[in-house]
C-alpha cells in the first residue's frame, strides 16, 4: 500500500511533532520533528535504538507528556495541546498499552476492576452491565472470566499483558499505541500476545502504532514501518520494501545487526558494524544526526540536515539514499 494510493484521509496524521524536555545546559530533544500517517486498520511499526524517542512520541499523542510543537489530527481534529476534558474524549479513541505488564497494572485492584475501570470512569456502564462488558473483554483477549476477582500478581507475564490489552480495548478505541507490548515477555509467551494482537486487529479494524526494538517482531506484524534515530524518522515505507531493500544507512546497519535464528543464514550474512554509540539527545542539530556513525557520510552530511524525501514509495532522510 503506497502513500500515493491512499485516497481516504488518514485516521491519524502527525506533523512536525516536537517534544523537548527542559535540561541544562541544553534541552533534551527527545522528539524533534516527527511526521507520519496512520490509516484505519493499519499497523505502523516504530523502531529505533534505545532513547531515540519512540515512547515519548506515543506518550505525547495521548497527552502523557506535553508536545512542544507540531500537530496530530485524529479524523481532522487536533489531539495535541488539549485541556483535560477534550483529552478524555480523545482517550476514548486512542489508547496506550505499556511495555511492562508488571509495573503498569495497579496491584491492589482485581483484574475485573482493572479491565472495567475505564467504562466506569467514562460513565459508560455500571452494575450488571459493567460486569457483562468486563467478562466480554476478558473473553476477547483469551482470559478466563473466572479469574475476575484475582489480583495481577497471580498472573503470568503474558496474562498480565492480556489484562492491559483488555483494559485498553474497554472504550472501543480505533487506535492502539502499543509501547513494546511483548519486550518483557518470554519468547514462548510473546507469540501468544502477538497472535492475539493480530486477531483483534482483524476483528475490530484497529490501527496500531507498534513500538518495538525487535525488528523481527515488527516485520511480522506491521504493514508499514518508520525507523527513528535521535528524535527523527529517517525512513518510512511498506515493511516488505524497507526490510528487503533499506535505503537509509542507519536502517541498513540496524537490519544487518539483527541476528537470524538460522545457523546457515548467520554463517553467510554480512554485518555492517557501526562505530561508536548514538550521540546524546541534547545535541544542537547541525548536519545529519547520524553523520558521526555513518559509514558513507560525506562533507555535506556534517553541515546540512537532510529532509525526508520520497524514494520509490518511501520517505528517506539522507543525502545519498
Amino acid at each position, binding site marked *: 500500500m503506497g502513500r500515493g494510493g491512499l485516497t481516504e484521509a488518514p485516521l491519524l496524521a502527525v506533523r512536525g511533532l516536537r517534544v523537548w524536555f527542559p535540561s541544562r545546559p541544553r534541552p533534551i530533544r527527545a522528539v524533534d520533528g516527527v511526521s507520519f500517517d496512520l490509516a484505519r486498520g493499519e499497523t505502523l511499526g516504530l523502531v529505533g*535504538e*534505545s532513547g531515540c524517542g519512540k515512547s515519548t512520541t506515543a506518550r505525547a499523542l495521548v497527552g502523557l507528556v506535553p508536545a512542544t510543537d507540531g500537530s496530530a489530527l485524529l479524523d481532522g481534529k487536533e489531539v495535541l495541546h488539549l485541556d483535560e476534558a477534550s483529552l478524555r474524549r480523545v482517550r476514548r479513541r486512542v489508547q496506550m498499552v505499556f511495555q511492562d505488564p508488571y509495573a503498569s497494572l495497579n496491584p491492589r485492584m482485581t483484574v475485573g476492576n482493572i479491565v472495567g475501570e475505564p467504562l466506569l470512569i467514562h460513565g459508560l456502564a455500571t452494575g450488571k452491565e459493567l460486569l457483562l462488558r468486563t467478562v466480554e473483554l476478558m473473553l476477547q483477549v483469551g482470559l478466563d472470566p473466572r479469574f475476575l476477582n484475582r489480583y495481577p500478581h497471580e498472573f*503470568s507475564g*503474558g*496474562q498480565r499483558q492480556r489484562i492491559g490489552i483488555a483494559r485498553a480495548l474497554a472504550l472501543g478505541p480505533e487506535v492502539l499505541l502499543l509501547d513494546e507490548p511483548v519486550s518483557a515477555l*518470554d*519468547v*514462548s*509467551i*510473546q*507469540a*501468544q500476545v*502477538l*497472535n492475539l494482537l*493480530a486477531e483483534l486487529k482483524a476483528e475490530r479494524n484497529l490501527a496500531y502504532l507498534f513500538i518495538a*526494538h525487535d*525488528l*523481527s*517482531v515488527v*516485520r*511480522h*506484524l506491521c504493514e508499514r514501518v518508520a525507523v527513528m534515530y535521535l528524535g527523527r524518522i529517517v525512513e518510512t515505507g511498506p515493511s*516488505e520494501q524497507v*526490510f528487503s531493500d533499506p535505503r537509509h544507512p542507519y536502517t541498513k*546497519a*540496524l*537490519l*544487518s*545487526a*539483527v*541476528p*537470524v*535464528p*538460522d*545457523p*546457515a*543464514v*548467520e*554463517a553467510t*550474512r554480512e*554485518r555492517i*558494524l*557501526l562505530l*561508536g*554509540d*548514538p550521540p546524546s539527545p541534547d545535541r544542537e542539530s547541525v548536519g545529519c544526526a547520524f553523520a558521526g556513525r555513518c559509514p558513507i557520510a560525506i562533507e555535506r552530511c556534517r553541515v546540512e540536515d537532510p529532509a525526508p524525501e520520497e524514494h520509490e514509495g518511501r520517505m528517506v532522510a539522507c543525502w545519498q539514499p
Partner: protein
Amino acid sequence: MLAGDTVLDLGDLHVDFDTDDGVVRAVRGVSYSIKRGQTIGVVGESGSGKSVTHLALLDLLPETATISADVMRLAGRSMLNMSAKERRSVRGNEIAMIFQDPMTALNPFLTVGTQIAEMFRLHHGLRGQRLVDATIQALADVGIPRPERRIEDYPHEFSGGMRQRVMIAMMLAGNPELLIADEPTTALDVTVQAQILDLLAGLQRDRGMSIVLITHDLGVVAGFAHRTLVMYAGRVVEEAETSALFWNPQHPYTRGLLSSIPRLDRGSQKLRQIVGAPPDLSALPQGCPFAPRCDFVEDRCREQEPLLAPRGDGHTAACVVTLPKWEGAV
C-alpha cells in the same frame, strides 16, 4: 578426546533454594562439558536455571542455596574436594563471568582505569608504569577509543556498551580459560550488541578461550555458538551442535521455541505458540515438566520424567515420544 582438552566438566549438578514457600528446585541434574576454544550457547525459558547453574560454579549463590554435584572439574582439576581457599584461587584464574548489567558489577566511585588496574595487580602483580600500560592496552583491546584518556573516567561517563567492554577488559586481565557471559547484550541495542559479539568472537579466536553464552535470543546462538544447550525447568532438555539443533530439533520445547519466534528474513505468518506457562519449581508436577504445554504429550509422559538420551552425533534430548519429522520453523 584428551583430558586436557576439556575445560569444564559438570556432572549431575543440583541447586535447591530454601524459601518461605518451600524448596525451589532451581537446577535438577545438569551435566555438560566444554572443550578448549569452544563456545556453548545456553537458551531456555526465563527461570529455567541458566544463571543459577553457572553462578553455582563460581560460588556466587546466597546461603539459602544447597549445591551438590557428582563432577565439577575445571581445567582437569576437581573442585569438589578442594578447600574454599583453593577453589577461590582456581576460579579466580580459570573462570570469569560477565553479566547483563555491567553497572552492578562496576564500582561507581572508582575510575574505570583503577578498576582494571586492580585486576592486573591482583593477577600479575604489575606496578608502576607497567601497570598503567597494561591497563591502557586492555581498554584498547576491547575497542575503547582514546584509552589513555578514558582511564580517568568513572563508569557513569560510559555508555552501556562501553561499560560492558570495561567488564570484559577486567575479566580478561586474569587470562581465564573460560568466560561465562550471562546475557551480556540483552540490555544493549542491536547495533551495539553486534559490536560486543564481534569483540567476543575476536578475543576467543586470539586467545583460544572457551565461552558459555547464556541468552534468550536464538539468533545470537545461531551465529555464535558451536554447541547449544536448551534448558527447561532446571534441566537440560536438549543439547546438540548448534546447526543440528536448528535443523533437527528433538525436543518439543525446542521445536516450540523455534516456531514461536518471528524472523527478520521472513514475512508475516501466524506464529505457532506454546500454550500455558512454565511450571512452579517448588511444586513440580509428576513426569515431564513440559507435558502440560506439549503438543505431543502421551500418557507415559505424565508418569516419569524422561532423561537426556542420545540421538546420534552427540545430539541428546529428554523426550520419549517419537516426534514427527521436523519440517522447519512454520
